[in-house]
């Protein structure tokens, strides 16, 4: 009896297991991995360069695909610096000068707060399914992994020619995401590790982004807290809230 219960529970939690998954189901899962309808998170970002190294703590909120707010909590010097994302637009707030500054389109590929993440990553990361055509290669990852190949749709403006995501078949969690440039050369690699349970969901809590063309550079993001389906309204993602 107990065994049956476990089986039913498993079937509810991991309905995918047991039959072949489509590429779309996988990418959808990747898109929603760190988000639900809404989420709230506390994370630590460590940036390593040959010249300096620093760690920032921040809190973030998201609602659907279109709204996100990130605020730096520590160190003191940067505390209060915040970024708001609404649709494809982005604003930064700098408490020292008390100004909200819209990130111009020309700066989208610029670094976000000195990290290896670009502003574009923050705006776009959540909508892979909308921006890319997804293909699933059954054989590339062997028995243990799926490999998703993402090719940008014609309307998508991006610097990447191709993105590949490695997903473990067992738990359907990503292990690696590689970004390729037009010449087909891998330009950066994001590694997912340190699986932990947040709010009943098992997730890689650490993401390490390594640009492959810049030696000695690395950015690591560690979730220390992650809550799903928190009550947030669209009005929370406003310029007024950004300045708070």
């Amino acid at each position, binding site marked *: 009896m107990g065994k049956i219960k476990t089986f039913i529970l498993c079937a509810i939690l991991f309905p995918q297991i047991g039959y072949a998954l489509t590429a779309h189901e996988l990418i959808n899962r990747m898109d929603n991995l760190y988000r639900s309808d809404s989420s709230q998170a506390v994370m630590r970002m460590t*940036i390593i*360069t040959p*010249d*300096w190294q620093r760690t920032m703590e921040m809190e973030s909120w998201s609602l659907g695909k279109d709204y996100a707010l990130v605020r730096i909590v520590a160190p003191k010097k*940067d505390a209060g*610096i915040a970024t708001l994302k609404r649709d494809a637009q982005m604003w930064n707030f700098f408490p020292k000068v008390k100004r909200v*500054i819209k990130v111009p389109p020309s*700066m989208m590929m610029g670094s976000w*707060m*000195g990290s290896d993440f670009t502003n574009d990553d923050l705006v776009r990361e959540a909508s892979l399914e909308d921006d890319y055509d997804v293909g699933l290669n059954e054989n590339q990852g062997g028995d243990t992994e799926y490999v998703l190949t993402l090719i940008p749709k014609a309307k998508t403006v991006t610097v990447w020619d191709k993105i590949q995501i490695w997903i473990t078949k067992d738990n359907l969690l990503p292990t690696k995401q590689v970004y390729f440039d037009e010449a087909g050369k891998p330009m950066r690699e994001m590694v997912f590790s340190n699986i932990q349970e947040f709010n009943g969901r098992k997730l890689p809590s650490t993401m390490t982004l390594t640009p492959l063309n810049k030696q000695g550079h690395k950015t690591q993001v560690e979730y220390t807290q992650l809550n799903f389906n928190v009550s947030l309204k669209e009005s929370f993602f406003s310029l007024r809230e950004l300045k708070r």
Partner: protein
Amino acid sequence: MLLKLAFRNILRNRRRSLFTGLSMLVGYMLLVISLSMQEGSYHWILKAYTQSQSGHIQINHPEYIEQPTLYKTVNELDDLLTWLKQFDWITHAVPRIEGAGLVYGEQESSTLPIMGIDVENEAKISTIKDRIAQGEYFKSTEHHVILGAQAAKQLNANIGDSLVIISQAIDGSMANDLFEVVGILENPQARDAMLLYMPLPVMQTFMVMENKAHRVLVNTADYRQADFYAQTLNNALQRDFETIQAHTWKQVEKEFYRTMQADKQGNQVSIYIIVFLVCLGVLNTILMSLLERKGEYGVLRAIGAGRLHLFNMIMLEALMLCAMCCFVGLLVVIPINIFFTHIGVTLDQPMDISGIAFTALKGTMEPWVFTLPFALMLMSTALLTMVPAIRAARIKPLDGMRAL
């Protein structure tokens, strides 16, 4: 005896001597003036350029010249500046910081290069203070900025506007602060037209670079001694400071130096052309005079003058004439050159060299400008006279006298 004879020969046919002499005189003067203008102009350009742009000598992190990045700094700046005071040949030691930032004006924004300057000392070595078109130079070390003409245009900024500057500090943190525009520079073609200047201490705080800089310009009395002093400085630096190095302006501004050298070589061609033209004139008159005096040489040979004697006499005549002309030329050219050196020729259109506008061509009073043409004139006269002189010396007395 030979000298006297040669001298008399010169005086004997004054008109002929005058013509030969005049071509030598004019040639000498042309050479002096063109050399003077060429050297002088370069000198003035280099003087202005090295003084304000690169410094005669520059102290940097050893890799900064090749690869300027924010992180390759001169550390312990205050100690270094104090240490530099022990050298009495240093006239100025001026630190600078170079960076870049996102600058948000009231309407427009732009990414601009930023330079932090030592407010008081920078004004002594560069022309920045005189090039302010609107507003004024830094009065104190507050959060004030001066914009190049292009930068101001791009930001659509006016005096009194406040700018938000965002950049990444040397420790990786987000540098962000509010600044007020106090000055705007003239000339959108200037080298620093896209630049934003701010006082050094302000930039040090902004970029978390306390007691650090990227360049320390070291000026001496004369940029031409930079090689020697840079060596002296490097020996001393090695002993007292670990990670910094002195570079001469030639190393700092390699491209500029190379262009200048190439340009200089090109100009040497014009000197050769002048020498060639003068030679043609001199050769012509000397040949004429020898032809005219063919009979005379025949007589001289007939009464027993040796070939060598005749050769020496002709050579001496030419050289003496040349020397006298050069001397007269010197007397005439000195005041002209003084004029060029101190006043110069004003150019209708200023010549632009790497962002420095030169409004006048100037000369130089260096001694070699006078002596080198003198030597050149004597040498070419000697060479030119030699062939006809040998021919005259080998004349058969009878053949020569037939010309009488």
